[in-house]
């Protein structure tokens, strides 16, 4: 199955609300952080409703905690469902991670060990989420800074098996592959070779920063050349796939991001023509 193509989009961030409300912005979709709009009312939802009249919207979450062995928070799922029913998104996504345990919430995307036990937990949670949301969920590969001794398989094998068993689709973050490959010393192209691209519905692009010893997924820089090169590789392996640029810090004027998105458009077309 080839995923339906939905074009090229940007994250909708408050600094650009006014642009999106007053200009014709040449994007095929916008992606929002779901939790920022899982509120009771007021300006955020008002803005999102207006933007939705102009653009398709993707709901991208950070708090589902799909790796929680105790199952998912029903209140969270109910609120996400209400937002999804209101917005009618292209799709709903979250990360392959967990955020806390025992009532504690770190509000960070914490890494999972890639074990059969974790796979069973995530599959069960994906099923719970897809049933509660009435939609297929997309799961994104995270940037990670540790690996677990207990891991029994690679991240790419975990994702492929997760998708096969649970029916979820994949949001492939090319920057996260680059960051994790650099941090853990694996071959990013081998990762791409193993990805079941027929399950990939969306690609994320972003920049990162050099930390003390590791690369950090900071979303505060333009997409760097090595990530573009990896995007080219991904595009050669898949048909047209929805692509979006994430920028969450040091956010530039919208026109700069639109120029960067044009690069994604042309590189995608170029890579696919080379592969044809």
């Amino acid at each position: 199955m080839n995923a339906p193509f939905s074009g090229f989009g940007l994250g909708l961030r408050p600094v650009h609300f006014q642009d999106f409300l007053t200009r014709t912005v040449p994007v095929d979709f916008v992606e929002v952080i779901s939790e920022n709009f899982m509120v009771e009312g007021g300006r955020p939802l008002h803005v999102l409703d207006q933007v939705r009249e102009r653009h398709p919207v993707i709901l991208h979450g950070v708090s589902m905690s799909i790796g929680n062995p105790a199952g998912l928070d029903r209140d969270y799922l109910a609120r996400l469902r209400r937002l999804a029913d209101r917005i009618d998104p292209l799709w709903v996504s979250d990360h392959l991670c967990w955020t806390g345990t025992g009532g504690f919430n770190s509000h960070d995307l914490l890494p999972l060990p890639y074990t059969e036990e974790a796979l069973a937990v995530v599959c069960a949670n994906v099923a719970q989420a897809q049933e509660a949301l009435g939609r297929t969920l997309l799961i994104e590969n995270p940037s990670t800074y540790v690996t677990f001794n207990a891991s029994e398989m690679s991240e790419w094998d975990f994702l492929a098996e997760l998708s096969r068993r649970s029916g979820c689709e994949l949001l492939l973050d090319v920057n996260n592959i680059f960051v994790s490959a650099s941090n853990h010393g694996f071959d990013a192209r081998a990762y791409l070779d193993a990805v079941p691209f027929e399950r990939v519905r969306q690609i994320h692009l972003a920049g990162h920063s050099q930390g003390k010893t590791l690369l950090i997924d900071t979303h505060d820089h333009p997409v760097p050349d090595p990530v573009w090169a990896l995007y080219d590789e991904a595009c050669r392996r898949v048909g047209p796939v929805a692509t979006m640029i994430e920028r969450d810090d040091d956010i530039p004027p919208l026109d700069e991001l639109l120029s960067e998105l044009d690069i994604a458009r042309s590189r995608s077309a170029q890579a696919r023509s080379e592969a044809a």
Partner: protein
Amino acid sequence: MTLARLQQDFCAYLLDRPNRIETEVAGDLEVYHHAYRAQLLNCLRDTFEKSWSWLGDEAFEAAARAHIEAHPPHAWTLNVYGEGFDRTLAEHHPEDPEIAELAWLEWALRRAFDGPDADSVDPAVLATIDWENAVLHLVPTVRLGSVITNCAALWSALAEDETPPPAQRLPGPAAIRVWRKGLSAKYRSIDAVEERALRLVLGGADFAQLCAVLAAELGDERGTAEIGRILGIWLQDGLIAAISDHPSDRLPISD
């Protein structure tokens, strides 16, 4: 080690509690230790921007870091993490009550910003109300706080990028109410009579009870005049979502 146990150890590491996670991983755990605190610090800076500006970087960060260590988040949304930060500031700055009051005001405005939507009542309905059985239903974003300082003046100056006045104690106890009208979160300093009336309504008093209490405390004539004045302000400010006049709408008074 089970996944659940691994996660408990990971969280214990984040919270500086005894754990064995370092024996279970390769890589740099410190990235997570740092990111957890940085995320919460940024959340408090964003939510309490004016308190941060008033306090300065060093004092704000000291209080924020103490708050983060004492209050690990439990909700799935960071939207509520600011709850109680005004109390932490009060503990850190007991001699400067304007700091905690400024933080309370910022927090109340933040909660009103994305609180539940509600239309304001159309003043035209006033003529049709059976006031004997009337109950005022306020918009759900209303919050009321008692203050002893000029925190509202500080907030206003900081919001306008003006030099704030010196912190001052008010001549007597006062109150601020916060609410949202349309999409705009608002606040207003209110006098003691309006504060009394608002506390009664928020506590469940119906209109007849409100009138009776103010008449008993202020005398019939002044009580009636004040009710009219306050009702006018609340209608103008969009504070009243609805006025019902069915006897079953009455709630037990809990002021």
